[in-house]
């Protein structure tokens, strides 16, 4: 999102406007079982999911609150038979709808139907550049070939297509092929996101952590391809921060640009916020969305800068990176208000780098995401 970042140095406390985007995780069900899925370890079962009419009402509230873009995600959103109704609701409330999908569960006819109902954009995940790699990572045989079909149908319908590739130790070296594939299939955008170790990925650090050299080469290749493909393919890149000196900014600041509603209706400031155990999340079944945005304790926990500790508190980079990732601080420092250990100023930085180095050198069995019975 191109959200304007308020210059917080000029203000005593951060002022946050209305959210720009909402991620609607409409289901945790998914035919794939990617070992880096950001969904929580405790997945919500089908009978715990919000029904159609509640989602539709949440979309209405989101639009009134100021949300412009609705990302329909999961799990696999196409696993819901009412996906059509959800897209219709987005159009009705004039929300820009983005379908974040693995492609499984979509047919040419279903895609055309979704387009007719006003679907604006398709973001298709890419686990690898051939069936062997993609189906190994996705844990779903035949997934790759169906995905390629979905990509072709999407561009043939003149629906804009983004390919989203999560890169990690096992596939990061094949980035040039991913870029070629994106161009061949007619995608307008390619997202290259280095795996983030939240949720299931944390169980797979040894198998997935890229080496420093791999990460560096990936960055160079992205820079080269951006130049070469200007006007053909836009590439968004999330680098590996474990090998960096400073952390990535937390989406324009915690609770400042977006919100995430999970399948059972709880509202979170980010897709990984469930990894911070002391946060209490309000539910759309119990509280209006606008009230949650403004008053939820989970949203207010890390808004602005007052919660910060040293070295972040007195650091002039804080308005740029917001102290890094709260979830990463939680995972590594055991305190979500600590400085992200990725930062060179964190007392845990050396330990974090040694751990990343060790994980990068070692390999492990993949632990796949599984639904509870």
């Amino acid at each position, binding site marked *: *999102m*191109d*959200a*304007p970042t308020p210059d917080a140095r000029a203000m005593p406390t951060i002022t946050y*406007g*209305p959210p*720009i*985007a909402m991620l609607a995780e409409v289901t945790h069900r998914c035919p794939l079982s990617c070992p880096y899925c950001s969904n929580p370890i405790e997945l919500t079962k089908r009978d715990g999911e919000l029904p159609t009419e509640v989602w539709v009402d949440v979309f209405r509230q989101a639009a*009134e*609150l*100021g949300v*412009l*873009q609705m990302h329909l995600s999961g799990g696999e959103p196409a696993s819901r038979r009412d996906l059509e109704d959800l897209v219709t609701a987005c159009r009705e409330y*004039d929300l*820009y709808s*983005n379908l974040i999908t693995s492609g499984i569960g979509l047919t040419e006819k279903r895609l055309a139907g979704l387009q007719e109902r006003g679907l*604006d*954009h398709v*973001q298709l995940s890419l686990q690898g550049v051939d069936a062997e790699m993609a189906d190994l990572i996705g844990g779903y045989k035949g997934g790759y070939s169906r995905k390629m079909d979905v990509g072709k149908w999407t561009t043939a319908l*003149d*629906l*804009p297509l*983004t390919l989203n590739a999560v890169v990690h130790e096992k596939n990061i070296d094949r980035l040039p092929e991913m870029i070629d594939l994106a161009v061949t299939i007619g995608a*307008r*955008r390619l*997202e290259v996101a280095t795996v983030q170790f939240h949720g299931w990925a944390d169980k797979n650090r040894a198998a997935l952590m890229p080496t420093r050299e791999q990460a560096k080469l990936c960055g160079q290749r992205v820079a080269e391809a951006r130049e070469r493909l*200007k*006007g*053909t*393919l*836009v590439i*968004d890149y999330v680098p590996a921060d474990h090998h960096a000196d400073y952390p990535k900014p937390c989406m324009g600041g915690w609770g400042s640009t977006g919100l995430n509603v999970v399948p059972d209706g709880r509202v979170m400031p980010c897709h990984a916020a469930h990894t911070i155990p002391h946060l209490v999340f309000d539910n759309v079944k119990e509280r209006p969305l606008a009230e949650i945005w403004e008053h939820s304790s989970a949203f207010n926990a890390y808004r602005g800068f007052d919660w910060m500790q040293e070295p972040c508190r007195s650091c002039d980079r804080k308005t740029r990176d917001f102290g890094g990732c709260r979830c990463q601080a939680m995972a590594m420092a055991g305190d979500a208000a600590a400085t992200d250990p990725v930062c060179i100023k964190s007392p845990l930085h050396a330990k974090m780098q040694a751990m990343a180095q060790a994980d990068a050198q070692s390999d492990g069995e993949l632990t796949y995401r599984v639904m509870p019975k």
Partner: protein
Amino acid sequence: MIPENDIPRLLSGCRTKYDKVRGNWVLLAPERAIKLDDIGAAILAETDGVRSLGGILDVLAEKYNAPRDQISGDVVKFLESLRDRRMLEVS
């Protein structure tokens, strides 16, 4: 550069909307919501996929009572930036 006879057109999945909550126009595109200032909104209001660049410049010059060659640079720059970001096509 965009020749004056060429016709700029927003690509599918890219559309403008008036954001009532914030009181400004936005360009909605894949994974992007771009706040438009008055000039950007005025340019896109005339970018209808029928008018050529030259036609757009004529309309803007007339409507805003501005010298055509003075606005032309900004208009082209704006359209080119959208083209580079795969939101607009010129044919």
